[in-house]
């Protein structure tokens, strides 16, 4: 499966995912563009290193991470090396479970949300969404972001973070439970919302 995978067309098909990955780390659109461009060029030049085993996207993200690291090294902004690369401690894998009772029934649990679609158009909602996302424990936030913001497949996220499949399911489940609860408390069940509707 080698060789054929590394056409320019196949490479540029990966551009959007790489770009979102870079953007989330660099917070700068032009920079993200540049780094992705460098990555794709480097990939073409070192096509012979690609072994097909890891999967094209995983390989490209490996190169991209080097390019991003290079960038941080060159720039003076070392201190702000973001969230993404530096978390390795375990979290979110505790057995203790505040979302369910011991018999597996919801503890509290999802209430109906009025008009979620409307929220997408409200600026105040995004501040809360962001806060809730950042409130997740770091590793959980990383897994969630790689899957839902960058758009990697589950198995790619596992490779990227070094997770077993079983761990992945636990972490994503808890991320969704946590984010859901946070949004419910801080937005959907909050009377502030009425104002925006009126």
């Amino acid at each position: 499966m080698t060789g054929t995978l590394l056409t320019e067309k196949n490479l540029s098909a990966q551009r959007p995912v790489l770009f979102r990955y870079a953007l989330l780390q660099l917070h700068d659109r032009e920079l993200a563009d540049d780094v992705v461009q460098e990555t794709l060029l480097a990939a073409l030049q070192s096509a012979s290193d690609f072994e097909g085993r890891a999967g094209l996207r995983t390989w490209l993200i490996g190169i991209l991470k080097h390019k991003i690291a290079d960038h941080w090294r060159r720039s003076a902004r070392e201190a702000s090396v973001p969230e993404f690369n530096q978390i390795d401690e375990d979290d979110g894998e505790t057995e203790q479970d505040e979302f369910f009772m011991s018999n597996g029934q919801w503890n509290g649990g999802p209430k109906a949300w009025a008009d979620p679609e409307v929220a997408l158009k409200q600026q105040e909602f995004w501040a809360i969404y962001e806060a809730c996302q950042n409130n997740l424990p770091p590793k959980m936030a990383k897994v969630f972001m790689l899957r839902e913001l960058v758009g990697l497949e589950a198995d790619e996220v596992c490779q990227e973070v070094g997770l077993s499949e079983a761990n992945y399911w636990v972490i994503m489940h808890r991320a969704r439970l946590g984010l859901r609860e946070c949004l419910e408390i801080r937005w959907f069940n909050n009377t502030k919302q009425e104002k925006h509707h009126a």
Partner: protein
Amino acid sequence: MHSCRDISILVSQGLDKKLSWRERFTVRMHLMMCTRCRNFQKQTQFIRKAARHYTDGLQSRLDKKS
């Protein structure tokens, strides 16, 4: 019987992989009688949508800043 915890795990997995026929059937039967799990499913789908909007929004917010 499957608990709401089991079902919510399947609902979450269903967003990341294709569930087996049996799993989908189990979920569907449970959702018919459980409002909370039904809400959970709708809300996790909404969260996925919100995450995509957020990423797009991030791009345009960054555009405005520069």
